[in-house]
């Protein structure tokens, strides 16, 4: 059964989500047992400062014998082992005995070396470990910390300076001594509302593990409001809807906000349905591209309470204010909601010509150690956008969130955030996400100059999402190279002028060649993005695009199959003149074949061309030899091994075999 594109014109959700019936999993917060391991001095003081975190759980202490520890409740005391190996061995057995009796679910330690025997036994017994490095370690790691960095499941440091010393597994998220920048005055103690931000996932499907920038901005806004914010990125953590619900049940937030692209709608709905069965269901809010184009999908059956359309920061901020004041969403522009059983779409928000200065995404809530992109040289990178919106009208591009009016941030503000990423998060690389980074060449050069003058040029970066080829100069590329840029990605899309024209891309083949030559002259690597199976494309056109990609001497190419997303002009073209071949929205995100039939576009044929493109581009001896240079670093090895496997899989099967339907929640 395939879905007729015309059926979508009613903007009706083509997704079937099981309504769970009968008794589901237990959705009440669970009481766990926590072992608190610390020595008797400052480490104990820090543990006591953290006491609030253990509220509602059972705890027992494991400490050295001292005046300060004897008065603790539920305490196991051992003699101070310092560096005595005999006492260390004895402690291993003591800990094992205690753990067998107490059966802890978790060890929390603030150090010092007393943590070592406890954590070793915990790891052997499969008990999770949270380690908080002592506040006295500012720029030098402790001996225990070095070991715990690898052993602990979560490793917190209390000064951002330590992030660089340890590495991406270390998390700086609050401190007993230091201030924490993104919050601009720690207001989380107010706990005005507990909010969890969720990026749902299509578990098993091909997806890029990009840190979700939109959510990170919302997180910063909500924390500034005094909300206690959690983030679940189910995409990078590979969490099926049930696992997300299990975490939400423990967090018990008052509000859950989802960012939803079209293929993720089924997952989001599956999670929402289960949440509605909780004794005290949270307020459910949806945002992101799909919520913006088709808000009714979320509100139809009363599942979600609010939909935030378009740019979310200001609307979310107002919504939280209103809810805290006991009011509803009346009068908040850009919000759709249910007013007395009726769906109401408040008017769109007025155009905001300026992007707020000094508001930076809060990345500390995200599982940063897990993000890794093959398109970057280094792991532990974070994205930045220096502008929002794009004035061009490409038919495949969705512009519902940031709009078609370009708003550029001040170079000083951009570079201040750049510096913040380096100092506050210790990133090893930065990804510039804008479509229109080079729209104003003078501004782009100014940004590059500021990067150099602030001493940030040693941090590599690239224009990851693809910039345009039509407005570039050698000067610009040189400035970028000197500021640490190592690779530019261009949105090339096609090697056929008539296809580019019908995509309304507004570039010429000659501009592509010129831009690549200039970038190479400046010493930059070049990556290109291409699309196959565009509306109106013929077999000859696709062949020509592959040939074009080969002759351009690119360091990197990414081919994708043209996909009409709701809200794009291409979607309307397919709706009018073709047939969309998906049974559910999540199938939009597959790589195996085209998802629509139209004119000469035959899904299986486009799939074959896609696989051919990958074979032809990447499995050239010359290209593979070229990549050998990158094997000099460990990350280079890791990335190329992963890329190799991925490419072989894509070349043989495309992505379809990998797609697992999460619409039914992936559970029995």
């Amino acid at each position, binding site marked *: 059964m395939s879905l007729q594109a015309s059926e979508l014109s009613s903007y009706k959700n083509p997704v079937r989500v099981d309504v769970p019936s009968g008794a589901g999993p237990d959705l009440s917060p669970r009481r766990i047992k926590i072992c608190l391991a610390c020595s008797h001095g400052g480490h104990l003081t820090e543990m006591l400062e953290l006491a609030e975190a253990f509220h509602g759980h059972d705890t027992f202490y494991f400490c050295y014998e001292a005046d300060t520890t004897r008065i603790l409740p539920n305490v196991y005391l051992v003699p101070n082992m310092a560096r005595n190996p005999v006492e260390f061995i004895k402690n291993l057995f003591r800990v094992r005995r205690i753990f067998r009796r107490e059966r802890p679910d978790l060890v*929390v330690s603030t150090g010092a070396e007393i943590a070592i025997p406890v954590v070793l036994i915990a790891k052997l017994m499969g008990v999770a470990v949270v380690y908080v490095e002592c506040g006295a370690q500012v720029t030098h790691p402790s001996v225990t910390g070095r070991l715990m960095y690898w052993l602990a499941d979560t490793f917190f440091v209390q000064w951002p300076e330590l992030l660089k010393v340890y590495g991406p597994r270390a998390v700086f998220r609050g*401190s007993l001594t230091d*201030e924490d920048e993104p919050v601009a*005055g720690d207001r989380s103690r107010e706990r005005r509302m507990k909010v969890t931000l969720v990026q749902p996932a299509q578990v098993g499907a091909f997806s890029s593990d990009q840190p979700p920038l939109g959510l990170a901005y919302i997180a910063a806004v909500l924390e500034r409001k005094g909300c206690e914010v959690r983030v679940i990125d189910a995409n990078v953590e590979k969490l099926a809807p049930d696992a997300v619900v299990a975490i939400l049940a423990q967090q018990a937030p008052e509000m859950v906000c989802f960012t939803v692209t079209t293929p993720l709608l089924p997952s989001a709905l599956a999670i929402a349905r289960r949440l509605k069965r909780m004794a005290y269901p949270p307020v459910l809010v949806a945002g992101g591209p799909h919520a913006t184009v088709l808000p009714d999908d979320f509100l139809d059956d009363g599942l979600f309470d609010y939909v935030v359309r378009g740019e979310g920061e200001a609307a979310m901020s107002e919504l939280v204010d209103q809810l805290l004041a006991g009011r509803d969403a009346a009068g908040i522009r850009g919000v759709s909601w249910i007013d007395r059983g009726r769906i109401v779409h408040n008017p769109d928000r007025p155009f905001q010509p300026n992007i707020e200065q000094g508001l930076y995404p809060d990345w500390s809530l995200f599982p940063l150690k897990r993000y890794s992109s093959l398109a970057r040289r280094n792991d532990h990178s974070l994205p930045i956008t220096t502008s929002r919106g794009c004035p061009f009208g490409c038919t495949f591009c969705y512009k519902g969130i940031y709009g078609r009016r370009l708003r550029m941030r001040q170079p000083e503000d951009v570079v201040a955030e750049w510096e913040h990423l380096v100092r506050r998060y210790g990133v090893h690389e930065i990804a510039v996400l804008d479509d229109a980074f080079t729209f104003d060449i003078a501004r782009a050069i100014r940004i590059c100059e500021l990067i150099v003058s602030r001493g940030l040029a040693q941090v590599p970066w690239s224009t990851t999402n693809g910039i345009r080829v039509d407005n570039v100069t050698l000067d610009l590329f040189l400035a970028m190279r000197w500021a640490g840029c190592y690779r530019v990605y261009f949105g090339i899309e096609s090697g056929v002028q008539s296809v580019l024209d019908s995509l309304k891309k507004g570039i010429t083949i000659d501009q592509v060649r010129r831009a690549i030559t200039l970038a190479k002259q400046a010493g930059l690597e070049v990556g290109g993005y291409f699309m196959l199976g565009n509306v109106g494309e013929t077999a000859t056109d696709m062949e020509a695009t592959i040939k074009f990609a080969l002759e351009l001497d690119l360091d990197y190419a990414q081919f994708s199959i043209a996909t009409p997303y709701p809200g794009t002009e291409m979607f309307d073209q397919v709706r009018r003149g073709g047939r969309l071949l998906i049974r559910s929205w999540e199938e939009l995100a597959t790589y195996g074949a085209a998802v629509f039939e139209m004119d000469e576009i035959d899904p299986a044929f486009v799939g074959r061309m896609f696989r051919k493109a990958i074979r032809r581009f990447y499995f050239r001896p010359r290209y593979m030899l070229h990549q050998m240079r990158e094997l000099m670093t460990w990350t280079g090895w890791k990335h190329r091994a992963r890329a190799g496997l991925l490419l072989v899989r894509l070349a043989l099967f495309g992505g379809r075999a990998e797609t697992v339907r999460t619409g039914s929640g992936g559970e029995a």
Partner: protein
Amino acid sequence: MIYVTVGTMFLDFPRLIHKMDEIAGKTGELVVIQTGLGATFPKNCDHFDFKPREVVLALQSRARVIVCHAGIGSVMDALRARRPAIVVPRLKKFNEHMNDHQLDVAKAVQARGWGRMILDIDDLEQACALPPPVPEKYSPATARLVSAVRDAIERVAAKPR
């Protein structure tokens, strides 16, 4: 009144105590020193080894200036008292500590504009006479760390055992 603390470290900190004693003798200002486990005692100052925490906090909040070693507990208390803070790190080369981590703490305090670091003990007199300004706002992200630990606990509780 100047409040001086050397923390709970088992090593002595005569460099600081002698200098403060000298300053007290010269200026006549009341100096109260918490001497801890050390064996050095001042002549011109009030002093005690340890006092209950609430007494210490009350003393600090009434001080004109707080001079402390760069132990993290002392620094936390001094900053939260919202009085001008002068931080004197214990250094390994004077056998005041086993390593130089207090230097890092003191540098961080100075770099963030929370107080003044004293490396050359002879600068202390001038620093006490012209104390550093109290930062307009100092809000350690304590609640945030508590929330982060709580987040990790919730994740563990969500896993079926």
